[in-house]
């Protein structure tokens, strides 16, 4: 079970993941060794899963990002599995989420520009199996991106 100090460490660490353990320890008023032990315990316990690099697709020339909200033909057995397997084959799909709600699946698609997006949409997305309906949301800006948990 986590105590208040563990939560404090996580709050600080989430806010600045590039901080060294020494800095993190100082912010939390701990010795480096104690801070390290607590981090290790949280890693071992599966609370901390890891540190990942965040890629800025726009810096790679992928300036268009579209969220496709898809409803599937649920009368077809295996519609979900077949759709997801086919969606994974599209290199421009950067994220796949499934939902309980009005929308079944959301695909996040990156493209270099609108003609590129149009080509992906026509040739790869519309040919995916078992689609009943698609709605598109085009990303204008990311306002909050930290994905921090309110621990």
């Amino acid at each position, binding site marked *: 079970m986590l105590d208040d100090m563990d939560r404090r460490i996580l709050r600080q660490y989430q806010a600045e993941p590039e901080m060294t353990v020494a800095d993190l320890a100082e912010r939390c008023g701990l010795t480096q060794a104690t801070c390290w032990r607590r981090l290790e315990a949280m890693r071992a316990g*599966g609370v901390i899963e890891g540190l990942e690099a965040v890629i*800025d697709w726009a810096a790679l020339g992928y300036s268009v990002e579209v969220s496709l909200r898809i409803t599937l033909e649920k009368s077809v057995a295996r519609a979900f599995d077949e759709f997801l397997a086919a969606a994974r084959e599209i290199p421009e799909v950067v994220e796949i989420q499934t939902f309980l709600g009005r929308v079944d699946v959301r695909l996040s698609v990156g493209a270099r520009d609108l003609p590129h997006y149009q080509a992906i949409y026509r040739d790869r997305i519309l040919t995916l199996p078992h689609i009943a309906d698609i709605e598109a949301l085009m990303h204008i800006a*990311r306002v909050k991106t930290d994905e921090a948990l309110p621990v």
Partner: protein
Amino acid sequence: MIALDETDRHLLRLLVRDATQSAGALGRIVGLSQPAAWRRIKRLEDAGVIAGRRLRLNAGALGFGVTVFLGVKLARKGQVSLADFERAVSAIPEVQTVEHVLGLYDFRLRVVARDLPDFERVLRRRIMTLPGAGEVEANVLLSEERRPGPIG
């Protein structure tokens, strides 16, 4: 814009999986010396391709059992400024991400909660009371996977 070769893409894939690895360890995997790997990573950082690092926490292990995506439409357009809405929504701790979108909704929010009653509390007390918040659609996240995308 920066051009990537296969080695750069391999380095990026490794860093997305685990950003704690040293340049030496990464170099050994992709067949580069430590300084050569370090130079490539530095170049990717300088070009903004690696925008930063993110701590990956297990939401479930921390007691957050529910993630909900909300599509929010602003009501009374023009009367409430986008900036006011963005500031207020970004200040809600349970709101993890806020995206300004074009289409059926104006904003897309990722919200975490302990369980569905907790989510209902966040929705009623925090989201519905935002300045300018109109129609809201909620979809509960069942699964998600991040794909390598163009670096695959």
